[in-house]
């Protein structure tokens, strides 16, 4: 029997209240306005696997990441990591033990390091917080080890974040994330702020570390090529919903959801093969007032009356999950 998946996300939803203040609502007769940032998202991540979420701005991918690491409470649904439910019905001790095993890497390496702390203290913070090493010498030794692991010098522990370039700072963020010996890393656009040559260094480093420590990644990006390079399975998000989950190879060779197809066609063609591309029409609708039925129908070339009224449910289909009324009808 195979091991159960490390991460199991079921029916995850999050609604934000973006109404005007109470008095304005009363005086101006406005309705309460709710933004459904994430709706009914389910996926699993196997151990030592990289699962990626991809989507355009406003698709809810970062909101999912925050709920998975425990920074944001879901409105509905559950996040279960290694058998422990992050939000409901678990003992506080179990959750604390779980927190050590989950770490996060953020997009902006300039904003995610305290400018007034030396690098050594930044990296040692999780070690101290979880009591993983005792005594100054042991902590210093461990910090030096971590810095060497991410390709920096142990002496860099004495410097401040501003003395490093963007790529080096992201290495520091990775060292900090690894300091609590986690199993599961959530990476929210880890290379979007970096130049391509530096991005390649960081992506290679992340792969090496995964092999070395058997890490599991939830990798979030808007860049399809980066996702293709990193992930084994990919979930495509559109306006808060997962529209397709598929193995990377299958998604890129034969996308089944019209939105996945559209995203792929939009990627600039470096090979200059002159492959035919469908121009994408329209823009992402306002998430406060999403279109009825399938949220993608106003931009979809295949939309039918059913799409305009009924929300398509995710269906398992040839080893993948697709939420589209027309999937499998051979029209995509």
């Amino acid at each position, binding site marked *: 029997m195979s091991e159960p998946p490390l991460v199991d996300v079921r029916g995850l939803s999050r609604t934000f209240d973006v109404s005007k203040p109470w008095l304005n609502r009363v005086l101006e007769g406005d309705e309460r306005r709710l933004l459904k940032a994430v709706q009914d998202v389910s996926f699993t991540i196997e151990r030592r696997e990289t699962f990626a979420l991809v989507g*355009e*701005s406003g698709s809810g991918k970062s909101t999912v990441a925050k709920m998975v690491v425990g920074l944001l409470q879901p409105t509905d649904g559950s996040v279960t990591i290694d058998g422990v439910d992050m939000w409901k019905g678990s003992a506080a001790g179990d959750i604390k033990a779980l927190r050590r095993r989950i770490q996060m890497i953020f997009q902006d390496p300039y904003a995610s390091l305290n400018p007034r702390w030396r690098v050594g203290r930044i990296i040692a913070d999780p070690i101290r917080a979880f009591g993983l090493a005792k005594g100054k010498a042991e902590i210093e030794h461990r910090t030096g080890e971590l810095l060497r692991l991410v390709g920096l010098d142990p002496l860099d522990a004495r410097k401040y974040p501003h003395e490093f*370039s963007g*790529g*080096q700072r992201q290495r520091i963020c990775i060292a900090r994330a690894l300091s609590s010996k986690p199993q599961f890393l959530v990476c929210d656009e880890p290379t979007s702020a970096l*130049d*391509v*040559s*530096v*991005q*390649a*260094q960081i*992506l*290679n480093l992340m*792969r090496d570390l995964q092999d070395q420590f058997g890490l599991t990644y939830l990798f979030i990006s*808007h*860049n*399809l*090529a*980066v996702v*293709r*390079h990193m992930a084994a399975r990919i979930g495509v998000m559109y306006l808060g919903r997962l529209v397709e989950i598929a193995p*990377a*190879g299958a998604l*890129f060779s034969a996308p089944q959801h019209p939105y996945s197809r*559209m*995203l*792929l*066609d*939009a*990627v*600039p*063609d*470096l*090979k*200059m093969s002159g492959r035919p*591309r469908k*121009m*994408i029409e329209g*823009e*992402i609708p306002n998430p406060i007032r999403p279109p009825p039925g399938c949220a993608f129908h106003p931009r979809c070339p295949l939309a039918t009356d059913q799409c305009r009224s009924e929300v398509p449910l995710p269906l398992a289909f040839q080893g993948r999950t697709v939420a589209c009324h027309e999937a499998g009808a051979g029209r995509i």
Partner: protein
Amino acid sequence: MTRPVLSVRGLRVEFPTRKGVLVAVDDISFDIAEGEVLGVVGESGAGKSMTGSAVIGLIEPPGRIAGGEVRLDGRRIDNLPYEEMRRIRGRRIGMIFQDPLTSLNPLYRIGDQIVETIRAHAPVGEKAARQRAIALLGDVGIQGAEARIDSYPHQFSGGMRQRVVIALALAADPELVIADEPTTALDVSIQAQIIQLLKRLCRERGTAVMLITHDMGVIAETADRVAVMYAGRIAEIGPVRDVVQSPHHPYTKGLMGSIPTLDANAPRLMQIPGAMPRLNAIPKGCAFHPRCMEALGRCWQDRPEPAAIGRSEVACWLTAGAVAGAGR
């Protein structure tokens, strides 16, 4: 060959500081022909935006053009007085910047902004200018232009705003458009629309375009020729197909290899060690030599000048040696 619309020769941009003079753009030369799109690509700090600013005469003091010349249609523009240069900007050189929100005035209707631009540069009446503004908005793909011309910038989405900015840049029918990271702030699906639009409009009008971006994909899609910049200099310049598919300069090779692609599932990306040098620490000789896997002794000492290889020009001792070797 016809005279190029834009011709830059030996351009050098300096920033005097207390610790010495920083050279942001160092002796670069290129031409852009009518209807041609020249892509200028490089990583942050390569000097690509600074080159664009130098061409339109918008370098912030204390920065200054310290050498070389910029010619528009054969006439020097880098030494013009401020007032004369101001008349050229907008009229003969259009500009598109990264963030469409900052290039539009939030307090004016978009129609008024376009009409103002048209009337500032052409002797037409209010009505005629408005008609032209509507036609322009239609050209850039804004549906119902007649109704939307009286909207404010905040009533448009990011992609639509960038279309308005393009309309504004083309309002006075310029000979040259400088687009600095025009799609960087946009989502991928919108980015593709904007690239296609810019390319189509400039081709139809015969406008020369200098497209500045860090995104090789955008260059491959849009540009006819590309200049790859590194540490203030052009490492390689040539037809986009040659540069993208068979680069000569080790930096271009590394850059192309480090871009993840959709089809190849290589376990590792090619990587260039280190990072672009800061302006105050540009190495002697070839600025790329500390990161170059193939550096020769000569690369540490002498600065390579651009030399022709096929249809490209490459500033590298390795390829220069190969050409000399072949000639012997």
